[in-house]
């Protein structure tokens, strides 16, 4: 799976089509992460963790999830 920020959603979806993996799961987190402090990054990581774990173990497959 791939974790991206929402600003890169269209690009990520284009890439998985281009590489022939349209079902490759992506987890979309809030943008930006480059200009926020470490505490905020950690908060977002904690908030995303359960969804990330669900994508990794979900046998039905999740194409995209946003947290």
């Amino acid at each position, binding site marked *: 799976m791939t974790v991206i920020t929402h*600003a*890169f959603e*269209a*690009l990520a979806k*284009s*890439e998985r089509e*281009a*590489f022939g993996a349209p079902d490759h799961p992506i987890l979309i987190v809030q943008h930006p992460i480059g200009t926020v402090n470490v505490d905020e990054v950690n908060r977002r990581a904690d908030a995303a963790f359960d969804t990330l774990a669900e994508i990794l173990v979900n046998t039905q497959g999740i194409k995209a999830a946003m947290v």
Partner: protein
Amino acid sequence: MDLSALQAERIEVGDDLWAVQALFEEKGWSDGFPVIPPTEDRVAQMLAAVRRSPQDVVGVVPPRWAPATVEKIAINAVMAGCRPEYMPVVIAAVEAITDPKLNLYSLQATTGGPAVMLIVNGPVRNQIKVNGGSNALGEGWRANATIGRCVRLFQRNIGGSYPGTTCKATLGWPGKYSICVGENEEASPWEPLHVERGFKASDSTVTAISADGSVRASDLDSTKAVGILSNFAQRMEGPSGPEAIMVICPEHAKIIAGDGYSKNDVKKFVWERAAYRMKDLPDETFNQRVKRRPDLKLTRDSVIPVTDKPEDVIVVVAGGDGSQSQYIHVWGQSTPEGGSTRSVTKLVRA
């Protein structure tokens, strides 16, 4: 030219040029400027200028990772306004921009918004009139304008790079429309770029490099190399890149070489002076820099040179009369592995 060998979809449109432009705009096939309609005849003229099959794949273009066939290259070259005799240079440019070392995907996906700059060397410059003299980085020469424009159209129409979605440039810069320059080899006191890179002087080459903006290194006061180069180095201070481009005007080059400086001496001189000083940074920025390059073991007394090594500074001579050189910053990260992008030079084949 057997037109049946062409595989591109044929689209019927009336003779009204405005209607043609409207179609291209609606389809998203233009960089914003009007395009030359790529009719069968015009595409065939382009293809006749190279000894390649229309379906030969020259490279794959991100982010769609689509094959750039000679036919698709020819179509976009027509749209950009190229003359057929530019095609060998255009093909070499595609080879360069699709070389994995350039890492075109990251160039077009980054928020940094760099252009892909082309530097043309060798006899082909004069054969097709690629300007390396007065206003070399500006307007007025069809070869410079349209060959450079091709690079953008390839990324858009073959690679699927669209601003705001698959191209994530925050601002971009005008070089993204077109930036192509010939080295002014005739006015240079040094060996040209392609000879530095192992090609013969009689070879023609195209070099592709990430470029994200320029700063004028004007100096009308200095009559010695040390002054011109010290001034130039000041323009180059700031965050480093994997490479850096010094476009030195002939008047400056003559003085610098006259004082005994080789190209390597020039690179070493500016590399020792153009730096990012850790002592000047706020704590937060400093700490991030330390984390980003643990291999450099940075302290508050450290300086980060403009590139990791002096030889990563690229020196080309271009321009006309005047004491106006330019520094062009190369987008990308310096990394222990050599950088996130590297310039690529390809031979132009007749």
